[in-house]
């Protein structure tokens, strides 16, 4: 009975406003991460400013687990640039190198063919069924820099969800048990 009394006492002494202030502080920390990401999107002009390399198709330049920084501007796409593009029906963007560019003199339309440096053939197999060229609207950005190895955390969390939930649980416990 003494233990139950102590528990009730400690619950009663907890102030609602303090708990609310703590929840709002935590919320502001989380939302600051969201806003920073949105700021990155606006500054770089790309829907995905940072991407993780998931396959070895661009070795030896980019290896699995590297992080790429993207930027999108109005400059024309040129052969040899490394671009990130979206294909209809595929969820994950692809990072490959431009090997052919066709431009039309009378209009702004552009046809682009890409290839992974470490692949044997071009990317027509990766495009949507029947599609032979990429157009401007498929391009999400071009690579302007990279960090090696940093993306492994993301890959591990994606491939082994149990690790992701363990991490989130541990962080949550940390926050709950820490005092102001």
């Amino acid at each position, binding site marked *: 009975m003494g233990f139950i009394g102590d528990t009730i006492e400690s619950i009663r002494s907890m102030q609602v406003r303090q708990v609310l202030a703590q929840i709002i502080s935590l919320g502001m920390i989380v939302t600051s991460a969201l806003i920073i990401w949105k700021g990155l999107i606006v500054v770089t002009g790309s829907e995905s400013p940072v991407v993780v390399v998931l396959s070895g198709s661009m070795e030896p330049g980019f290896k699995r687990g590297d992080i790429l920084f993207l930027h999108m501007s109005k400059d024309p796409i040129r052969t040899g640039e490394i671009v990130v593009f979206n294909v209809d029906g595929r969820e994950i963007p692809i990072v490959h190198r431009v090997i052919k560019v066709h431009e039309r003199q009378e209009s702004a339309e552009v046809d682009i063919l890409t290839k992974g440096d470490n692949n044997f053939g071009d990317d027509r197999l990766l495009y949507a069924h029947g599609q032979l060229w990429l157009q401007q609207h498929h391009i999400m950005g071009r690579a302007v820099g990279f960090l090696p190895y940093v993306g492994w955390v993301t890959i591990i969390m994606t491939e082994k969800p149990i690790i992701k939930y363990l991490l989130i649980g541990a962080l949550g416990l940390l926050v709950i048990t820490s005092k*102001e």
Partner: protein
Amino acid sequence: MASDGAAATPAKASPKKANLLDPHSIKHLLDETISDVVKSKGYAEDTRLGNWKLAIGAAVIAIALLAQFYPKKFPQNREFLLGCIALYVVLNVVLLILSYTKEKDAIMFTHPPAGSFNSTGLVISSKLPRFSDMYTITIASADPQSISANKPVHFTKSVTKWFTKEGVLVEGLFWKDVERLIDDYNTERKGK
């Protein structure tokens, strides 16, 4: 009034205890106890500033969630995102300004005691510098410009005076010190 602090100490089911290796824990416990002492002297807590901070914090969170879940994809939502980001930054700056100008080290604001001629409440501040054991309490008027404002009073003591070796707070001693400070503040007016 009798100066016996033990009489004013409320009966507690269990003694308050702090982790002596954690300065934040010590300061937090002392601040809490000061709030209890001030309330027992008839001052009601003024939560307006705290409410404003909670409201601004909630607004900040709402803006970020709005930016996150706006039902359009980039770049159609570029102007909206810019607006949300700007508003987010502005509100955070406002929160920061509130903390630095209104709150500073304050741990509690109060209303004037009921039935008193005094028209301003108190601001109780405390400071426990890093790596130091000297704890400072300051009591000042909530409105220094008011005609009924008294001069601020403060004292500084080592926290070792109020804690046992096991980290239990000797509330009687602490209550006595804080009550004497409050009496000093109120007595200042009579001396004018």
